[in-house]
């Protein structure tokens, strides 16, 4: 009987602590040690302190390529150059790491926490930030932060939530259109939704988009919403149903106007991006979408896209997002975590992550225009190697739009079903 009782009490107290967390009544304990790490006066001191530490990095473990990049490429350099041991702790869902930190906070373990670093973004970051369970602001203190464009709102804001230096950017992804150069004349490519509509009407049956709530399908609709409502800036505030309903009206009319000219007359849509890619690969449609900034060479090599597939972006911009690493407020090895976060921004490491040899084609977290000397030429080399199968990073950056907060996401997905999918 004792155990369930204890569990119940623990659970109840956890619930109480959680509710007090969200109201912000618990103060973050900040030791003198933390203060000195954050002062930024001496990076050498941080590196010194990190020596001999083990950094416990919690991250999604579902991809062999990512795991081997972290273990081999990052782990080796950390060991050899900084004397830091990297311990990668794989999780199925970042929420597991977040809950671990929250549980420790509830239990009063304000120091010597077991999580040193988390690969994070979006809602999970928001949860930790609300619970005041993050260490920082540390991001801009890192020496390699010089390569990051912190004036870019898409980096400053993570799903519309100000990062406040509590997470350091690691990589990026961005929506891109892909067309088949053998069937579409590059000079006639639509470069805005307005032009896309004309193209679709002139080429009936040759375009479709994957149905929301698929992540990329929702992005396609979201970007249309930006264009028709006059830009993303006005939607950075919390959702106002009445205002949104009015502004989104043209989106539904647009999608219903193109519907009869879509693949199969718009009677159905591909369910996932994989299905859309199959249609594209089989030459049933002329466009598909990707998110990999490293380009589509890997897809072409695997035969999942035709040789003549080429990515490009709209003049009106496409949605991109960044992913980050964050340090919990109670991390035991904060210095080692900072050294790791810094190393991840090292141009060399970023390039390797972008490549398909050691990395996984992930987009850069750093800004190529900020590179100098060796790194800059190396980057140029990578760009020319990728050739036509990747959109140049400058172009992507220039056209990058931030994502909307989850409430808009939900409203758009629900609206699409109601006003487009089931509208006969």
């Amino acid at each position: 009987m004792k155990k369930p009782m204890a569990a119940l009490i623990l659970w109840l107290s956890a619930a109480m602590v959680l509710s007090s967390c969200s109201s912000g009544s618990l103060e973050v304990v900040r030791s003198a040690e933390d203060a000195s790490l954050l002062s930024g006066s001496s990076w050498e001191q941080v590196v010194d302190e990190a020596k001999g530490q083990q950094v416990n990095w919690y991250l999604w473990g579902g991809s062999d390529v990512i795991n081997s990049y972290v273990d081999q490429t990052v782990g080796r350099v950390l060991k050899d150059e900084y004397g830091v041991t990297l311990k990668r702790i794989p999780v199925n869902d970042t929420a597991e790491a977040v809950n671990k930190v929250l549980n420790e906070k509830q239990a009063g373990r304000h120091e010597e926490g077991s999580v040193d670093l988390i690969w994070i973004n979006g809602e999970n970051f928001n949860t930790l930030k609300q619970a005041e369970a993050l260490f920082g602001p540390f991001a801009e203190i890192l020496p390699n932060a010089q390569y990051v464009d912190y004036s870019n709102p898409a980096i400053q804001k993570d799903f519309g939530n100000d990062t406040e230096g509590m997470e350091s950017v690691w990589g990026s992804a961005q929506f891109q259109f892909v067309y088949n150069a053998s069937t579409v004349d590059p000079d006639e490519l639509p470069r805005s939704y307005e032009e896309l509509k004309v193209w679709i009407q002139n080429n009936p049956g040759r375009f479709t988009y994957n149905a929301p709530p698929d992540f990329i399908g929702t992005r396609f609709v979201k970007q249309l919403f930006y264009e028709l409502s006059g830009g993303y800036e006005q939607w950075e505030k919390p959702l106002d149903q009445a205002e949104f309903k009015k502004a989104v009206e043209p989106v539904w009319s647009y999608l219903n106007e193109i519907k009869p000219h879509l693949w199969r007359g718009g009677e159905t849509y591909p369910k996932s991006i994989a299905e859309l890619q199959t249609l594209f690969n089989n030459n049933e449609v002329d466009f598909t979408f990707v998110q990999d900034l490293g380009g589509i060479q890997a897809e072409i090599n695997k035969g999942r896209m035709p040789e003549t597939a080429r990515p490009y972006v709209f003049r009106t911009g496409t949605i991109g997002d960044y992913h980050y690493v964050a340090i919990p407020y109670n991390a035991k090895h904060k210095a080692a975590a900072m050294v790791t976060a810094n190393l991840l921004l090292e141009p060399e490491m970023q390039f390797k992550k972008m490549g398909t040899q050691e990395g996984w084609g992930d987009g850069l977290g750093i800004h190529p225009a900020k590179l100098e000397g060796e790194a800059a030429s190396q980057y140029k080399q990578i760009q020319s190697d990728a050739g036509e199968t990747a959109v140049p990073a400058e172009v992507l950056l220039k056209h990058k739009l931030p994502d909307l907060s989850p409430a808009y996401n939900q409203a758009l997905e629900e609206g699409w079903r109601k006003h487009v999918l089931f509208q006969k």
Partner: protein
Amino acid sequence: MFYSKSKKARLWLLAGMLLPSVLVILVPVGAGLWITGEQSLGYVPLIGQTELSLDVYRELFVSRIFYSSLSFSLMVSLFSTLISAVLAVLLALWLRRYVNKSKWLQFLIQFNLPLPHVVGAMAIWMLLGQSGYLSRLAYWAGIIQEPAAFPVLVQDQVGAGIILEYIWKEVPFIAVSIISILKAWVLPYERQLRLLGASSWQRFRLVTFPFMLPPLLSSSIIVFAYTFGSFEVPYILGSVSQPALPILAYEAYTNPDLTYRPEAMAINMVITLISVVLVFLYLKWGEHHTVQQS
């Protein structure tokens, strides 16, 4: 004890021995049903909803999409079952005299029984999709000029792909259950009738078909209930704009907004209710079936 003369004692023993397996089956099902029912009434403490109400059902029963899904699911199950049953009867009648003689034939009609439906669905998709093998073959042979000219059989509005998959999978299932009856019971009667001078149609009408009917009906009800509640086949072969009922439930369930959870559960309750009715029908026919045999 085992050989106890008392009938009562034997019954108790039997009940006691069955108890563990009954518990294993009933407890999770009961618990699942309880939670589903509770959540369908709006009980979702995760988001602070603890009041029970019938609101979700009220909304569901006036929703156009719900009725369109329900009738789609019913039609798909009905057509799948009817066509499978007719084909299975023909197949059984045609094959029964060869089955005992040929091991290969026996294997052929049974080989797809252990295959999962997902495999069948993928096969149908690759075979009959607009960029599937048949379409490519037709294109190669010059019958069609482009993939879009191939008839839409997959992810279509009437569920043709789904029905085809079910037929592929269920015809052998029904046929096997009929053949076993035909082999075991019918032959002596038919021989008798033949000696009495009955024509083949008379033999079929008076003996073969009546014997076939109970297994045919009971297996058809299984097929209907299965296809009605099945998720993976309509998920792969269905159109997003014409979702089957389980798909509708799944979509509500996977919505990150937890206020959609009760809707998912209410749809599941409707599916469960209809399945339960079918199970009662099945039990009825099963009884009928045993009575006839003995």
